């Protein structure tokens, strides 16, 4: 395999160098030197114990290498578990903070209403604020609606990203967009309230709603006109796409009409109030504006 193969092209020099059989040169060179000096007699150089020690070292390293790989495996699992535990802890922390934000928001709106109730213009504003905040996700909303439950095909491996029977973020998006299109006023996925800026994405095998993972089965609840929501949804392109997917890949989709649903307050993806000003004096005209535009 080794010696130069006769190709004299300069560009081959590097490859030739790489393939040249340097491995044998160590010993050959040493032998040549020794033969010159000793006139052919085969003599030993270093002390025997040095050879023995090196042999012990070589074999020891090989053995440790073998053993170490196996010893590493539980360690890898350990560090993964430790990371998972840290992620769970951080998630708990986020949940706690979100609930704090939600309760602070309730207190804030109560204070705001009390302030608004003191003036005529404020009382006019209160009702429109109420209806807007219900739609924007700032307050809980209850009413009749539709529940769509999406689940993976039976007997598939959730972690197999290539499996067509998995519910993907796109499928959830399709349902949600269909529901909005059909006139839904509020939508939740597994209890997470969606807003105008909510994101439904995938990260690895998980589906993230506003950057928090949700697990199958995906229960998508929507509140809307009891007479038209279900039928309007059924006639959307989304519903047709989804039933085609269900037929082709075995995704499990059920849709039912429910007389009362209660959808909670959105904890993330809420429009930020960028230019709210502290009311000066008695002149109460709060300028609520949301940069994203909340329909």
């Amino acid at each position, binding site marked *: 395999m080794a010696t130069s193969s006769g190709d004299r092209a300069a560009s081959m020099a590097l490859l030739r160098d790489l393939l040249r059989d340097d*491995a044998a040169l160590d010993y050959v060179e040493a032998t040549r030197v020794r033969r010159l000096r000793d006139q052919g007699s085969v003599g030993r150089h270093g002390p025997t114990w040095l050879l023995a020690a090196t042999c012990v070292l*070589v*074999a020891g390293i090989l053995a440790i290498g073998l*053993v170490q790989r196996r010893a590493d495996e539980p360690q890898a699992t350990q560090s993964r578990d430790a990371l998972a535990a840290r992620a769970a802890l951080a998630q708990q922390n986020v949940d706690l903070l979100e609930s704090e934000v939600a309760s602070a928001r309730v207190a804030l709106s109560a204070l705001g209403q009390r302030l608004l109730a003191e003036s005529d213009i404020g009382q006019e504003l209160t009702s429109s604020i109420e209806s807007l905040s219900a739609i924007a996700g700032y307050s809980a909303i209850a009413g009749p609606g539709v529940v769509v439950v999406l689940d993976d095909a039976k007997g598939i491996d959730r972690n197999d990203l290539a499996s067509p029977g998995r519910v993907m973020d796109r499928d959830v998006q399709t349902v949600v967009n269909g529901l909005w299109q059909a006139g839904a006023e509020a939508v939740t996925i597994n209890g997470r309230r969606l807003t105008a800026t909510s994101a439904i994405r995938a990260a690895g095998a998980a589906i993230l709603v506003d950057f928090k993972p949700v697990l199958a089965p995906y229960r998508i609840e929507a509140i809307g006109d009891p007479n038209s929501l279900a039928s309007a949804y059924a006639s959307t392109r989304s519903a047709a796409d989804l039933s085609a997917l269900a037929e082709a890949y075995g995704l499990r989709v059920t849709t039912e009409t429910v007389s009362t649903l209660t959808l909670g307050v959105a904890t993330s993806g809420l429009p930020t109030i960028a230019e709210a000003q502290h009311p000066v004096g008695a002149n109460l005209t709060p300028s609520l504006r949301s940069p994203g535009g909340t329909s």
Partner: protein
Amino acid sequence: MIAVIGLIVGIALGIFLQPAVPLWLEPYLPIAVVAALDAVFGAGRAILDGVFDDHVFVISFLSNVLIASLLVFLGDQLGVGAQISTGVVVVLAMRIFANSAAIRRHLFKA
């Protein structure tokens, strides 16, 4: 003879003692293992060629491990540790293949 005894003792020590490799040494273990394999194959070839020299064996093994570790250490400092260890492993693996080919030619005449 002494070499074979040394090898057996070394393997026994490595397997039965299972010394814990300290964390800072861990990146160098694969390099050391490949260098050790290279030393073994090189020695085997030299024995078959009739040119084995224990001096060369000891020095070449120690210097190879040392230089390879130094390269990987430098690479780690420069942020290219993975690439350099890949390079070292590739070079040593090529030597192993060349040596094993020579051994094969000796043993099987093929």
